[in-house]
């Protein structure tokens, strides 16, 4: 037998049993306990084969199912007769419990719908009028408040605080291409013929901008638009803009 769902999908042994009954398309009243017991055990075995841990409550129901099954196989002794009227048949008891559980299981969808419905109405935090409030704060405390009111208030504060968090947003770093930077530098050189590498940057400089600028300068040097000079290693680089004449001399 192949099962596609795992035990985690169930809310407990009764839930699993209900699922199996539903799968078999039978009514709780018409359930053949012997048959469903086998399926239930098969399911637990399948879980075991997958090395999944099975909570003890699942095993307890398994034992109970086997108990019902074995009871049915034994001939009823006369001794039991005395107790019969007082004690509920275990099979009936199980079916009763299943029915009760399934009723609550069914009503869960109502609560889910209501939950979704309420979410469609947005309300706002009360306006902050604490400065001009007419009623004294201590008047509020005269009401019959208990610890659960405090808890409720605490939860509201948490909810409100969470609304104060900034809205999620993405900040993209400004990117600049080497070509764009070359254009910018060319404009700069038109006003200043000679400058140092460190002078090129304004205040908010990123690592990326330095790299792009450096590469732009190398590119400009290659095309003999500028000439570079550095005294020693790690010292500032002097950039000199070459005008037409000098460019030809170099070319």
């Amino acid at each position: 037998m192949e099962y596609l769902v795992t035990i985690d999908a169930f809310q407990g042994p009764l839930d699993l049993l209900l699922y199996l009954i539903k799968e078999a398309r039978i009514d709780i009243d018409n359930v053949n306990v012997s048959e469903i017991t086998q399926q239930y055990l098969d399911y637990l075995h399948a879980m075991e084969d997958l090395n999944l841990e099975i909570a003890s409550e699942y095993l307890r129901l398994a034992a109970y199912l086997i108990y019902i099954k074995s009871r049915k196989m034994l001939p009823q002794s006369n001794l039991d007769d005395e107790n019969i009227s007082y004690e509920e048949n275990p099979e009936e008891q199980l079916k009763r419990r299943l029915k009760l559980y399934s009723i609550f299981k069914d009503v869960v969808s109502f609560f889910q719908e209501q939950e979704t419905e309420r979410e469609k109405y947005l309300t706002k935090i009360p306006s902050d009028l604490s400065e001009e409030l007419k009623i004294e704060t201590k008047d509020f405390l005269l009401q019959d408040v208990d610890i659960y009111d405090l808890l409720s208030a605490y939860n509201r504060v948490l909810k409100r605080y969470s609304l104060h968090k900034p809205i999620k947003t993405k900040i993209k770093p400004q990117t600049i291409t080497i070509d764009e930077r070359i254009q910018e530098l060319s404009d700069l050189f038109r006003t200043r013929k000679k400058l140092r590498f460190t002078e090129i940057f304004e205040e908010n400089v990123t690592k990326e901008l330095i790299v792009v600028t450096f590469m732009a300068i190398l590119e400009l040097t290659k095309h003999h638009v500028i000439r570079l000079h550095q005294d020693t290693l790690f010292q500032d680089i002097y950039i000199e803009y070459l005008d037409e004449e000098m460019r030809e001399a170099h070319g």
Partner: protein
Amino acid sequence: MDRAELLAGLEGLLYVAGDEGFTKDELAQILEISEEEVEELVEEYIERCKDTSRGVTIIHTAGHYRMATKKEYIELFRKVYTSNKKRLSSAALEVIAIVAYKQPITRAEIEDIRGTNSENVIRKLVAMSFIKEVGRLDVPGRPILYGTTNDFLDYFNLSSIEELPELAEDVERETEEKDLYDSMTKIKITE
């Protein structure tokens, strides 16, 4: 105050109160009208809000009237207001349903219906103030009896607990039988 002024007053009051809202009784006192008149007034306001050019309306949850945006336009509002609210788990909803219908109820009774341990779920629901202790059962150990809260009603868009749909007949009968049994034997709720 004439009708128009009352409507304006209602609108302004509920706007200021926000999600706290006002009860029928409070509005009656402030506006100096009867509770029945408050009901009529709210009905009229809601009726006027049905106009498609209106973006807000009044909802009635947990016994409070609250001003809220209209659900018809929720998609529009969601553009700026993204809800990251976590929905309740199936286990939590099961426990909520059981407490809602069978309150006051002990943990043992909840676990008996579900056939599984529910301690953590109950603790979580108490922390979220959806259920609370409403008393103790007068039996050895004095177990806590749980009931639902106003936050529960508001969360599930209910004005009162009476708004819950009726359960299938079997449970009703169950409950009656149990109640009969309980009244004959042990239950005495003490605060």
